[in-house]
């Protein structure tokens, strides 16, 4: 009993903080503003502390939640994502008149879903976690109710999300039909015993599960919701779902496909190979012609899903660790970039087109420099986090013999540099001067940006510690 609760302690803490946030908002007097973000920050830090304390114990809770190093590592990533999002938020909430209680509570519930997704060892619980996460994010996407774009984005996301959930659930059902259980280890055991060629039905079940995951990580051809939803959502929510949701979905994807279906690696790898190549190419190529920074970053996140898939396809421990590392590197860089876009917006002007960045170096040199660092990290420039992440993933791919995958990855990375640099060029070298927005940037946003910057440099310059953590965290996965 005690072990059970210990295993879910990080999740429990965040859940409590979410509930407290919600209730506190409901009970606060009309004109007063309770420090709602504080509850979230406390809860997330508490969860991070709990994750660190649990490190190495490999506790199992209620038979379906596993607090192994893998899930704890992912916990740390999504906690960082949640924390940064909350730090950036106050200014945006003020500006967009977003109801703060709901916003923070939903963010925290989404984090709960993400953590649970990484820790679930049962397909049904995994599905539940997926839904907890998704529902919260659907609402967050449309939280600016009055805005047409936001509502449209939320609705599209919801419809297609429900569609994909159905496929995922169908996959779960088929798996249960074949194996007789939804526990990941039992599935693995059953599949490992049958030494003849895999049953067609197993493959279909696996394919449907893959479709469900592919939707969440926005892999081609299940990515079409992403640009619309990313553009319509409030910028910070976009950053949150581009990083947190992707991290959680990848964690579950890794766990399911490398533990339960690891014996069928030869069957699913070619399919995902095609998906990864298509994702990398399409995300990059279409990203090139985007004129809106948020939409551009949306396509960039599609392309990054492709790079991350490479780590999954490789299927080795090194590949898996590289994926985890990449998730962390990608998360801080992307969140940082979205945060810069978010803090620059004003009430009148969303400031999210590429030409809005013209001459930013003159008006806001600090933000321009930050944006440059984050974009270059996404583009994979040394010595930033993104470079090291790409390096580990592609070297893992080459070691495992997936040379072509690495080549496609490197080539598309090169092309992707084009659209990252477009903003950089705009900021520094454009003769035009965009309308200079001068929003006051809150202290918490400055703190968040600093943290992201430090993380980008830390992961880029001294990656060894993080990659070793990632390597230890994937031990004992399969």
């Amino acid at each position: 009993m005690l072990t059970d609760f210990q295993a879910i302690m990080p999740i429990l803490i965040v859940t409590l903080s979410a509930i407290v946030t919600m209730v506190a908002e409901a009970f606060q007097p009309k004109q007063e503003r309770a420090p709602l973000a504080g509850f979230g920050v406390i809860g997330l830090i508490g969860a991070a502390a709990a994750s660190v304390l649990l490190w190495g114990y490999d506790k199992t809770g209620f038979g379906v939640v596993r607090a192994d190093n893998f899930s704890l590592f992912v916990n740390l990533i999504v906690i960082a994502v949640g924390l940064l999002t909350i730090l950036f938020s106050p200014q945006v909430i003020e500006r967009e008149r977003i109801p703060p209680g709901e916003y923070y509570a939903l963010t925290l519930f989404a984090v709960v879903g993400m953590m649970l997704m990484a820790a679930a060892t049962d397909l049904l619980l995994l599905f539940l976690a997926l839904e907890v996460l998704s529902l919260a994010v659907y609402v967050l996407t449309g939280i600016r109710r009055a805005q047409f774009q936001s509502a449209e984005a939320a609705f599209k996301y919801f419809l297609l999300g429900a569609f994909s959930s159905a496929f995922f659930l169908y996959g779960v059902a088929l798996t249960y039909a074949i194996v007789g259980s939804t526990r990941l280890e039992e599935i693995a055991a059953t599949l490992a015993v049958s030494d003849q060629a895999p049953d067609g039905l197993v493959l279909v079940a696996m394919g449907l599960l893959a479709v469900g995951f592919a939707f969440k990580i926005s892999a081609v051809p299940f990515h079409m919701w992403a640009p619309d939803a990313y553009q319509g959502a409030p910028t910070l929510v976009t950053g949150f779902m581009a990083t947190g949701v992707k991290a959680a979905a990848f964690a579950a994807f890794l766990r399911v496909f490398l533990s339960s279906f690891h014996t069928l690696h030869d069957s699913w790898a070619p399919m995902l190979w095609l998906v990864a190549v298509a994702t990398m190419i399409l995300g990059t190529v279409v990203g090139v012609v985007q004129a809106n920074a948020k939409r551009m970053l949306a396509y960039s996140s599609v392309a990054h899903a492709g790079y991350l898939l490479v780590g999954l396809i490789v299927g080795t421990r090194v590949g898996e660790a590289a994926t985890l590392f990449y998730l962390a590197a990608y998360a801080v860089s992307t969140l940082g970039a979205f945060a810069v876009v978010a803090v620059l917006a004003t009430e009148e002007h969303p400031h999210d087109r590429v030409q809005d960045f013209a001459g930013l170096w003159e008006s806001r040199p600090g933000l321009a420099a930050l944006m440059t660092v984050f974009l270059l990290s996404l583009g994979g420039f040394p010595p930033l986090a993104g470079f090291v992440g790409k390096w580990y993933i592609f070297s893992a791919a080459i070691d495992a013999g997936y040379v072509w995958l690495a080549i496609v990855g490197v080539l598309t990375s090169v092309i992707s540099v084009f659209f990252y640099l477009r903003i950089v060029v705009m900021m520094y070298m454009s003769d035009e001067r965009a309308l200079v927005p001068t929003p006051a940037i809150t202290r918490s946003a400055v703190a968040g940006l600093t943290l992201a910057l430090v993380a980008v440099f830390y992961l880029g310059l001294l990656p060894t510690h993080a990659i070793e953590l990632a390597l230890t965290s994937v031990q004992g996965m399969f």
Partner: protein
Amino acid sequence: MLALIPLFPFIGFIINALIGRRLSKATSGGLACLAMLVSFGVAVVAFWRLLGLPAEARVIDETLFTWIASGRFQAPLTFRLDPLAGLMCLVVTGIGFLIHVYSTAYMHEETDHEYARYFSYLNLFAAFMLVLVLGANLLVMFIGWEGVGLCSYLLIGYWFDKQSATDAGKKAFVVNRVGDMAFIVGMCLAFASFGTLDFRAIAAAVAALPPEVTWGVLSTITLLFFIGATGKSAQIPLYIWLPDAMEGPTPVSALIHAATMVTAGVYMIGRNAVLYSHAPLTMEVVAVIGVATALLAGTIGLAQNDIKRVLAYSTVSQLGYMFLAMGVGAFAAGIFHLYTHAFFKALMFLGSGAVIHALHGEQDMRKMGGLRRALPITYWTFLIGALAIAGVPGLSGFFSKDEILFRTFASGHSVLWVLGTATALLTAVYMFRLIYLTFHGKPRYEGAYEGAQEAHRAHDRAAHAQGTHNHGGGGVLHDAPMAMAIPLVLLAIGSVVAGYVGVPHALGGSNRIETFLEPSFSPPAHTAPAVAGTHAEPGVALSGEGAHAEADAHGATHADTALELTLMVTSVAIALMGIGIATLVWLKRPHVAAALAARVPWMHRLLLNKWYVDELYDATIVQPIKNSSTVGLWKGVDVGVIDGAVNGTGWLVRGSAAGLRLAQSGSVRIYAAAFFVGTVLVIAFYLVR
């Protein structure tokens, strides 16, 4: 603790680079000096701790973290203090500190912003130099190696609005890259051969091998490293950048292009002494190149008129001596000379800076003269430096230079000894030519009551200089201000006494510095490097190499002593002769010099134009590369193939994107349909297979 040594200058760099423009000159300059002083203090403490260890265990390792770990390839960021590194650390931080102090006065005319930029570069340089010195493996050393190259480039081109300065900076950078390339290849080869980049591990691995008598991998590695060293330390064939580097501010010339950075090549060979002693063929190359450079630069130095250029060629020449020492296996002697040279050459550069400062930017010795009375401190300190470099007994240069020449002769390289001794003669001559032209004779500078003709020609330039150097008008010359005089005096004292740590046995000394340095040049007694605090077991016999060196250092036989004394007397005589010649030609009978130049005009032209080496390189290397680049690579490959490919890719990407984005219509039905088709394809992929 070792990490603190480079850390403080680095912090100074960060502060001056980020907020320097808002600081006053006193603050930013003071900060930079303070950083160096603290760093020096830490270096002294670290050195003290090193001395506290037993001689054969004097190694302090400090691993900060593993920088890169990729399979077999490990590159921990490790700092290592051993006698060699300790000595270098003291030189870099100590002399560096003095030069920083000197700079606060020398650069006083700069604007606040520029002033901070200057000190940020200078601090960054010190940080990188210390990383180079303290690095325990080739990669860490290479970080410093590249870093100091960068700082050197930045500081040579510090006055970037001057075309010649930026050109000189570029030249230095490009020439250095040639050497660095060889260094990188050598590093890769070393890793491929030994599986490690750690100096001690390499030394341990090499010690087990027999010396490589025929050409092989050890010779190749060492030669590649040496090519790298010729770039950094300005040896034939890559020495051409150093004289041009005098475009930088004079304190920079003193710090980077005399005392520290240019000695990095010598230091690197010292670091890899075991490796080099197993590659006798490369050693011969090193020795020959060293002595050839020394001689060549000495001859060029004879005919130069720019005060800093004379010093620059003298530096090249002295570096040649150090390489000669390395080449004949007298590693300790080479490092000893490096150490004494740092004092007197820094002193002379700073002295020339004081002269230039007093004359508002004049560098041509033909427009100086008679400054002895106006600038007494500068004159006397400079004279001490010149006596030291000339090898007059009792001063530091005498001990170190003699040690090198003795070792050269003793190792059987009598031809090299003759050439080295000839260079010593040249050194004395051009040094005292410089002294006489600058400080003696009749004043020829502008504002002096005589020599109006030359002054007229110099008018434009001096007037320009006066625009920026706006104090001390009216022809009254000021000697070095306090912040410049104190470093001069301290360095002068150093130039005298620094040699006494290495008094040779022949003169009744014990040559302590060689005994002290020797462990750094022998393979480690243990294969594993000792960690701080753990001493190597006492009583472990030194392996062959070390024992041999020990015998060399301690048990000099009677015959050796006699030989050494003979050689010593010879070289002292040579030095005095050189001074005599200079006195005769440039002090007593000034017309002789002109007559000589007129008698053999071709010789004079040849020397004045530096043997036309720059022109030779331009004709044989630079122009052909430029031509083939323009015609073949640029117009053919770059514009045709590469630009074509890049533009083609861009065109392709844009074209296909235009098509693909049509699918992204915004209609959720189409999205759902795409989703469904995708799912069907996934399922079909499995079922069809």
